[in-house]
């Protein structure tokens, strides 16, 4: 089979050349080895190693940003970026998350601040034999513009959208790759996340059927310190709070990531709080993604990206909680 294959060096050259048209973001390794999506040159390229710990959708929905500027009696929205972004480093699960929040931010009320960055951005997934500790990363299929499937060393490049295809054309050269390599990776990839999905579906069913008692949520919330990390790392968590800050000549309105694990998240001005109990907040974190969203969107909105389980300091990310729940009540 004739496909485009890039060595890491060639990939680097391609990304460097893409900078004329794009604001290129790639996984890099920072000062102490932490991998993040950064600019080329911010640190050594670090594509291999699996999902990036940071909330991947922070590229388009950052921790804190200005949403409005107010001066001389008028309002201004932030300007769109001069160049669209080309972002490398989404896993298949990350791309699923992105696809969902694209829909979310476009539903009824379109979030311009988000789409300023998101429109025309090119998403490049990474998959194959380059996960953490040599694990296989699920092959994306078609939920991105382009995909880099690692064979353990080099990257087989596949394009799914028109932009992706035209980018590939720019690179030109192609190589022969033994058909088995790709077939084998795809076959193995098909097996990934299946068990996880079964678990999430089973948990979702229990929640929809209201089979999980309060005492379960109490026992989980006893272990939650309200660090907010699960929300702040989750690519499908989209909540934010707003605040105003004066700058020399006017006022800027900012937004900052918020968390449903905080007591103040839903507290009313009266002091009444529909989510004023720890156990309710803990249930909400899981219930929202596995039950409420099923009712609203027709599907669960956790895509098994793994971040909340990695980042929760007490081991109660969504998968751990679902496991405990299904073991007890399933």
């Amino acid at each position, binding site marked *: 089979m004739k496909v485009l294959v890039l060595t890491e060096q060639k990939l680097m050259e391609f990304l460097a050349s893409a900078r004329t048209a794009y604001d290129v973001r790639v996984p890099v390794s*920072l*000062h*102490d*080895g*932490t*991998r*993040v999506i*950064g*600019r080329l040159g*911010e640190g050594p390229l670090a594509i291999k190693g699996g999902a990036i*710990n*940071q909330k991947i959708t*922070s590229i388009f929905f*950052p*921790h*804190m*940003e200005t949403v409005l500027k107010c001066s001389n009696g008028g309002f201004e929205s932030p300007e769109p970026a001069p160049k669209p972004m080309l972002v490398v480093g989404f896993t298949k699960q990350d791309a699923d998350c992105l696809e969902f929040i694209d829909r979310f931010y476009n539903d009824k009320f379109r979030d311009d601040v988000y789409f300023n960055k998101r429109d025309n951005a090119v998403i490049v997934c990474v998959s194959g034999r380059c996960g953490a500790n040599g694990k296989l990363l699920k092959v994306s299929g078609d939920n991105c513009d382009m995909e880099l499937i690692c064979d353990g060393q080099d990257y087989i490049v596949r394009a799914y959208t028109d932009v992706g295809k035209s980018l590939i054309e720019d690179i030109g050269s192609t190589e022969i790759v033994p058909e088995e390599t790709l077939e084998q990776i795809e076959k193995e990839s098909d097996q990934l996340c299946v068990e996880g999905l079964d678990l999430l579906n089973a948990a979702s069913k229990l929640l929809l059927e209201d089979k999980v008692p309060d005492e379960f949520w109490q026992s989980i919330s*006893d*272990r939650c*310190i*309200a*660090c*907010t*990390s699960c929300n*702040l790392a989750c690519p499908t968590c989209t909540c934010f*709070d707003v*605040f105003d*800050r*004066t*700058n020399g000549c006017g006022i800027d309105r900012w937004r*900052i990531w*918020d*968390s449903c694990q*905080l*007591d*103040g998240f839903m507290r009313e001005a009266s*002091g009444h709080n529909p989510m004023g109990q720890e156990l309710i907040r803990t249930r909400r974190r899981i219930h929202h993604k596995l039950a409420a969203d099923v009712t609203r969107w027709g599907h669960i909105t956790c895509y098994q990206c793994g971040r909340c389980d*990695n*980042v*929760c*300091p*007490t*081991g109660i990310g969504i998968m751990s909680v679902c496991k405990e729940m299904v073991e007890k009540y399933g």
Partner: protein
Amino acid sequence: MKRTLTTCPYCGTGCMFYLLVDDKDTLVGIEPSSEHVTAKGQLCVKGWNAHHFVNHPDRLTTPLIRKNGILEEVGWDEALDLVVSKLKQAQSAGGKDSAMFVSSAKTTNEENYLMMKLARAVFKTNNIDHCARLCHSSTVIGLMETLGSGAMTNSIDCMEKADCIFVTGPNTTEQHPLIGTRIIENVTKNGAKLIVADNRKIRLARLADIHVRWKNGTDVPFLNSIMNVIIAEGLEDNEFISKRTENYEELKIVVADYPPEKAAEICGITAQEIVDVARMFAAAKRAMIVYSMGITQHTHGVDNVKCCANLAMLTGNVGSPGTGVNPLRGQNNVQGACDMGALPNVFSGYQKVTDPDVRKKFEKAWRVRNLPGEIVHTVTTAINAAAEGSLKAMYIMGENPMMSDPDQNHVREALEKLDFLVVQDIFPTITSDYADVILPATTYAEKDGTFTSTERRVQRVSKAIEPINQSRPDWQILCDIAALAGYEGMKYDSVSDIMDEIASVTPIYGGISYERIDMIGLQWPCPDRNHPGTKILHVDKFSRGLGKFSPARYRPSVEMPDEEYPFVLSTGRSYFHFHSGTMTRRSQLLDREQRFPYVEISPQDAAEHAIAPGSWMYVATRRGEVKVKANVTDVAKKGVLFMPFHYKEGPANLLTINALDPVANIPEYKVCAAKIRKAQ
């Protein structure tokens, strides 16, 4: 977007993270470091919000001098000239010790070192102290006497290795969150035993095998009685005692007076609870004591600390993984500020000022003569002296005694009486309201340096943005003051040079350099450039040679509840705010979480006083009265109130008592008598 690796400015856990800076030099976010030994890609809510206050419009941005009662903006030269001339004036009128220098556990090691050098080498006084006086001075003294070092004996990762963890006095999941989570994980995943001895039903108490809610201030009889049971039942570690310790007979005599029945009565618990704790602790292969302010902030704080050390030695739980006596440091650099000698009795590295050889060594290194050998004031006695009129001038760097010292009216009186007060800070505070000069300093995000975490790990603080407006890093301000006062020995090209000087005069920091701690910090003692640092203290030998049992007898707290003031009031911190609130109350989410001053009160007490949850009420002591919201919760025990001290509009320290431990001078923040009433 630029990312800078630095250390969290909040608690002493010492997580490192990346600060995100946009193209306009504004901090716009935080990313955890997945590689950091403690953070491991995680943070608590304060860490996640640690960028927020830096660009707050309230920042002090230019030096201010009070002229005719009004603060006026001035240039740096004018402000610093005035500081130097006024400090000198006070000293020439009232003697060297009529000026007090207050350093800060928020600032870097380098800055603490320079503040102590300024006080001693330039202004020739040992009147240098900082807020460790208010939190762990009893630890430094109590553990020094028993073990030979005032620091946490073990490392944070030991929390995961213990078979039994005895938590008394810290609310770790709120005050050292990523240490608290290690305890939770060890308990829930490995089945480690957890004993919580705390009046409040803190989160860890919900997961504890035994939760003892004894009366505040009865730590000594409680701990003595545990030891009594251990000895009576032959559960002590005789080999450890005979090989590694001294003065055991003395301990036996004292604890013999605390049989469980007698102690139980003093402590307000059952004898069985004491026996259960003793057996569980003694049975564990690796048992660890974790303590904090609940132990230290008493007029018998030093005694409490000694009892903790006694218990660890009695059961052979010192010097190995998963054991030890572990006082958790509550501020980012309170460990470092002590290490740097921002204390009246020691130079950096706990080298005694009363030792003439030590003074000679520093005289040579600093190229000065006649370093003072007398110890006069601590932070707490300095306030008393100012109120009496014998202390004339104070230079406060990064502290807010009006909020953090006991008995606010007394502190106000003291500050008002001073001839000259200079406050160097990042935001205006109610302490700076009394200042004659205010010097704008930078936050942690605008400077380089190091903090030392609770596990003695010296870690880098790195500059992410330029100083805002005219603010300047504390170390540069201190160096300028030294130069203006005519001292040539405080000129440095960079903070790394300051660390090199610290290493050269401080044996425990001897091997620390910026090059070595570039990515991962080193744990002291680290005596030379090839030393890998020390994870666990007292491994084969105690720092003082043999561990010394130092028994203590029960002394009740100074102000006990009575008919008029029937409640016990205890104070401390909450999860979302930090100390006097200057930073967290200027951070959107943290402030939103807890916007009002509050008191924790038990459902029974609230019901008896017809106080509805969330309603306003008054708490009064013999010092004053404060209006707060009622946080009705079963965290509080009947008869006991708990108030955090973050709120200037509802200051807990207006109520606390200015009663001090006779040795450590630490105030009794944890016990005073109070009464309550409903607000109409």
